[in-house]
């Protein structure tokens, strides 16, 4: 089973890369871009047939390794 995870910076945490991307987009003519927040995407293949169980395991992985909860949030999709 494949589980997808998106890790993003928490609201209010400075994202200099996102800011640089936003300014570049503005400079390229995409003037209506107000904000860009950059994140990470993980595609995890796990040996588990029960989706609820798999997601619970991935949640544990997010808390222990994939995200740093001081500055990041995660979403399992």
């Amino acid at each position, binding site marked *: 089973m494949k589980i997808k995870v998106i890790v993003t910076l928490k609201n209010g945490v*400075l994202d200099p890369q996102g800011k640089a991307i936003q300014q570049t987009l503005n400079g390229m003519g995409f003037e209506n871009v107000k904000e860009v927040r950059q994140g990470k995407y993980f595609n995890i293949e796990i040996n588990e047939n029960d989706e609820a169980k798999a997601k619970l395991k991935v949640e544990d992985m997010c808390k222990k390794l994939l995200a*740093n909860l*001081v500055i990041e949030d995660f979403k399992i999709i």
Partner: protein
Amino acid sequence: MKSSVIIFPGSNCDRDMDVALKKFGFKNQMVWHNDFELPKSDLIVLPGGFSYGDYLRCGSIAGKSKIINSVIEYGKSGGLVLGICNGFQILTETGLLPGVLQQNKYLEFICKNVYVKINDTENKFFKNIKKKILELHIAHNEGNYFCSNDELKSIEDNNQIAVSYCNKEGTYNNESNPNGALKNIAGIFNKKKNILGMMPHPERMIDKYLSGEDGSVFFENLIGNLK
């Protein structure tokens, strides 16, 4: 006095640290990250570098390595742990130190000498130190210290801010903050002050002719405090 320097794949300040520790009288051993046990030591050092290629987040993979449980146990039981640069990042990833080191504010790798002021001398690292403002070298891409407001209040209340970026005179301001770190924080302690993480490299400042000797001041003082 016995010290141990942990080597992770991608560490690159481990040998500099070994030279520095031996120069000031430590009997130093190098410890491989795949080992489970630490040799008997008075000081454990996590050196600078790019452990595991800085994959995922700086220090995150090293923070789960085989040796790290022994380091956590050693630190939690009051043993002296020093993390420099990537070592500081590893200490925050293990949770031994609060906060996180984010990418530098202006997205640049910074490699230069800076001044840092020692804020607290009631600990084994800085007790009796003869200089309060040290000129040290920094070389990092992720040194921008950040923590939540509640955490900041807690580390300020406990005097856990060990060293802060300042100018030559010891004044904190934006100009002397190289990477955007919260409150100019260059290094912090845990609550008990037996664990210190800092971005500047004292091991690079131990030669009168090549670099200056403010790192020597740090190491001489440290071994003096342990004797």
